[in-house]
């Protein structure tokens, strides 16, 4: 039999006003296992706590029930009290007779009866409470940042600046990501490269940051504080130690392929640096297109390289490192336009995507920053901008709003008016969304000062008409049909999650939503966390965002990482699931519902008759388990139980309530 002590708090008149404490105390004295009952005006006060400690010692109490305010208020306080008296803190149970009783019931008789019932329930549970212990876990104080766009760059720099080590992994041969492709940025129109390049250089030079370009995450294991990540360093075929970045090879390479960075508007060589300001500014060989790798003959780059840096023998290397936290900043893909035949993209050279148009604007782009028609090299006088291409389209595209198109299209309209005097922009839109500091003003400038005509109505079809393009639509505000002959059409393509986001999510044991954007732990209160502790999100990989938001989220993620690293060690949550071997059938229903990937299979050996046999059962990783208990219900035989909220405890509570 347990020796349970019950302590009833008056909370001044908060409880005592509507609950007859003496009556409650008398009733508590008759409850199973209760050997001691006391009451106090303010149990949370030092005197009150001292009284509990004394009683524990004097009456050899082994379970404590405190009837007072909500456990969400003082559970931790009282756990410490009990612990300091030499009991396990989880031997404590609280009956919430204030928030759930005295404050909400005016009738003293009903309140008293309910208080007794609540205490009986807590006593019944306490009798089943067992000692629980947190496990101390060490922390590897090195962070991994996946993705070298502006989000990854910012997160890496912020973490490194707090003094912790960071590894930054980028798939492409250079840092920079999407932002490097942009010309100017809204709403200030400052040059994207001018603000990004210094940050890229900072990353390369930071003593706490190790930069791995042309590298990808291969495998992730472990948990908060102790991830083990294998990184595939793809064979660059260029020795970064030897290469001086002189660029001799780039000019001589005979194999040409469409430049990804230039959105296919021009060609690059098979050995290439993606763009002039690349960091590291050293090339890589694209083996899929390299003449040597495809035909076995060439080696021109090796011949011209003064530094002997070309290494065709180089192989992919897999390196494994330990990390304490991970920031995912893998960015986005632009929407593929295969299903939008009505816009004649790919059929007519003067129909461009917004990112292609961005390259036309860029001084280092294929036209040197002049807006020229790809078909004939003439400057377009009239340009139709079509919004929501692939966005807000549940039939053929993304059901969501890509968020940035309204603003960058306003920017394009403004830049067009500046770069092509006498030109005219027509912007076809469904709604214009400009929520952001100085955004509305920027949009206003596009149509008030720069002469852009905004037409509410989406374009239905683009036809080639002679040298021009006929754009057909309707102005829904006036009901007038619109037929414009324009020189160029720019499609505001939607933002997609990375095509391979799901694979990465699987490696990281985090989830993606139906659009493959990574899911945050809580949409409002934990927008930077994933539901896997220690893995954080930054930038568009979590959902469409503009640059300021991306940078803010990256810094937030960095702080989250730094907060973890600044702790001495991590304590595991003791109220976690545990598996009872003899009951577990090993069907792993529990694993399917665990949001944290905390459950895995393990092989156990056990006796069967006279033999020892092995079989598979579930295993809970206490570092990953957050104690939700979803698994306990998925488990039909009740083999997985939740410490602190066991089946036995809850059934005892039910039984006690129903007495």
């Amino acid at each position, binding site marked *: 039999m347990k020796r349970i002590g019950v302590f009833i708090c008056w909370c001044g008149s908060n409880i005592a006003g509507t609950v007859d404490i003496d009556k409650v105390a008398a009733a508590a004295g008759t409850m199973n296992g209760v050997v001691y009952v006391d009451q106090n005006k303010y149990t949370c006060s030092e005197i009150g706590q001292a009284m509990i400690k004394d009683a524990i010692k004097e009456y050899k109490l082994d379970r404590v029930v405190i009837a007072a305010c909500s456990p969400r208020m003082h559970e931790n306080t009282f756990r410490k009290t009990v612990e300091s008296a030499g009991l396990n803190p989880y031997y404590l149970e609280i009956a919430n007779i204030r928030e759930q009783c005295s404050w909400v019931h005016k009738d003293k008789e009903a309140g008293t009866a309910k208080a007794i019932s609540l205490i009986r329930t807590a006593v019944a549970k306490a009798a089943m409470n067992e000692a629980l212990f947190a496990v101390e876990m060490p922390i590897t104080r090195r962070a991994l940042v996946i993705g070298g766009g502006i989000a990854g760059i910012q997160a890496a720099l912020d973490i490194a600046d707090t003094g912790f080590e960071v590894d930054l992994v980028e798939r492409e041969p250079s840092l920079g990501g999407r932002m490097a492709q942009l010309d100017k940025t809204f709403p200030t129109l400052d040059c994207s490269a001018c603000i990004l390049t210094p940050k890229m250089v900072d990353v390369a030079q930071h003593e706490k940051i190790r930069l791995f370009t042309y590298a990808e995450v291969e495998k992730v294991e472990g948990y908060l504080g102790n991830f083990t990540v294998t990184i595939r360093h793809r064979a660059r075929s260029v020795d970064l130690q030897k290469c001086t970045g002189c660029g001799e090879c780039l000019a001589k390479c005979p194999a040409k392929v469409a430049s990804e960075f230039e959105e296919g508007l021009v060609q690059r060589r098979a050995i290439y640096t993606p763009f002039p300001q690349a960091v590291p500014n050293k090339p890589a060989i694209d083996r899929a297109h390299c003449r040597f790798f495809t035909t076995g003959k060439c080696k021109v780059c090796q011949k011209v390289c003064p530094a002997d840096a070309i290494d065709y023998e180089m192989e992919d290397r897999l390196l494994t490192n330990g990390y304490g936290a991970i920031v995912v900043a893998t960015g986005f893909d632009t929407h593929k336009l295969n299903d939008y035949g009505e816009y004649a993209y790919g059929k007519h050279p003067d129909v461009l995507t917004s990112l292609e148009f961005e390259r036309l604007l860029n001084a280092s782009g294929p036209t040197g920053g002049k807006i020229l028609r790809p078909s004939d090299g003439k400057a377009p006088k009239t340009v139709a901008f079509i919004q929501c291409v692939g966005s807000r389209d549940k039939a053929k595209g993304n059901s969501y709003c890509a968020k940035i198109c309204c603003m960058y299209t306003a920017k394009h309209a403004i830049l067009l008016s500046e770069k092509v005097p006498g030109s005219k922009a027509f912007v076809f839109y469904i709604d214009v969304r400009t929520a952001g500091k100085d955004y509305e003003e920027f949009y206003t400038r596009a149509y008030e000062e720069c002469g852009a005509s905004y037409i509410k109505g989406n374009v239905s079809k683009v036809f080639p008409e002679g040298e021009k393009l006929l754009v057909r639509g309707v102005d829904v505000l006036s009901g007038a049909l619109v037929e414009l002959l324009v020189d160029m059409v720019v499609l505001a393509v939607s933002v997609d999650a990375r095509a391979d986001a799901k694979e990465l999510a699987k490696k990281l044991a985090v989830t993606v939503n139906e659009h493959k954007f990574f899911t945050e732990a809580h949409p409002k209160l934990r927008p930077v966390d994933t539901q896997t502790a220690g893995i954080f999100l930054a930038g568009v990989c979590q959902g469409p965002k503009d640059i300021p938001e991306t940078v803010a989220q990256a810094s937030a993620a960095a702080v989250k990482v730094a907060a973890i690293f600044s702790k001495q060690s991590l304590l595991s949550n003791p109220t976690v699931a545990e598996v009872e071997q003899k009951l577990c059938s090993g069907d792993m229903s529990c694993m399917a519902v665990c949001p944290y990937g905390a459950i895995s299979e393990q092989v156990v050996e056990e006796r069967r008759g006279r033999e020892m046999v092995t079989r598979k059962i579930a295993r809970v990783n206490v570092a990953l388990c957050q104690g939700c208990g979803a698994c306990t219900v998925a488990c039909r035989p009740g083999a997985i139980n939740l410490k602190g909220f066991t089946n036995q405890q809850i059934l005892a509570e039910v039984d006690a309530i129903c*007495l």
Partner: protein
Amino acid sequence: MKKVAKTKLAELFSAMAAWGKLYVPAVSDGIVNFVPWQEGLTVALTALNVLVPPKKFFFPQTETVLSYEMGEDLQLEDFACRAGERAILFAARPCDVASFAMMDKVYLDEPLDEAYRRRRENTTVIALGCSEPDEACFCRSFDIDATKAPGADVLAIDIGQELVLVAQTEKGERLISVLNGLLSEATSGDENRVKDEQEKNEGRYVTSVNLRGMMEKLDGMFAADYWEQLYKRCIGCGTCTFLCPTCHCFDLQEYAAGRRGERIRCWDACMFADFTQMAGGHNPRPSQKERVRQRFMHKLNYFPHQHGDYACVGCGRCVRKCPVNLDILEVIQEVGGAVDGL
């Protein structure tokens, strides 16, 4: 010897129900069971065995044996004294009636089960002879005559338009006298028809087994490989035991609610995995093999050793209802009792 026209049965039942609680066989959703009689109920006179054997009237599936309350001191209430309601069981079949004798050997022997005794004493059993045993009926193998039921208080025989009633005990006489106003004297023609029925009985079986030497044969078979083969298809349900008129195992369970509680006795089945499960987790019958062996050894060896009779009356319920057709007929045949008529 009395008789009653079948058309008058409703009146007869009404009179019986007025005298004591009357249970009769009736069909619900295709299943025949004994149910309390009530006005308007159709009594299933031609149905052979009811699903749940009438042992339940003396040995209920669930009964509270005592209750307690912890106060200043412990208050106890023994429920056995409540088990004394006057009852009539109508149309028990001779095999089931024979099973009562087996149950008596267990519960009326020392230590005497008071509740059982009272129920037995207060219940008047009216047996109904079977005029056409089913193909799975093999009571004849146990020397039970389906047209006779020596253990019954009253024997009823269906002679077509009427039922003949023969009081066989004092209790039976008493009941007949209560009902006398509704009964008429049987004629000698009726008596002949009853005799005729009884003489025909032998020839009506299609299934019968020879049990000679069965008990002795099993003496040496505890460790036999036979069980190894037999048990494999047993699924460990309690159909055979719960439907068996002679199975009599029970479990005691506590139902505690705060400072009050009850002790409940309920049927248990040796086929269940937790039947001999002990608190520490140990189980002397760890697999279905031991459980299946236990069941048949008990029926065909231990019980006859102890009480002189096989614990089976050939009612055929397990033959008909076992989901996997693993039944006592099979065991008797395979262990070596000769089988006739199969």
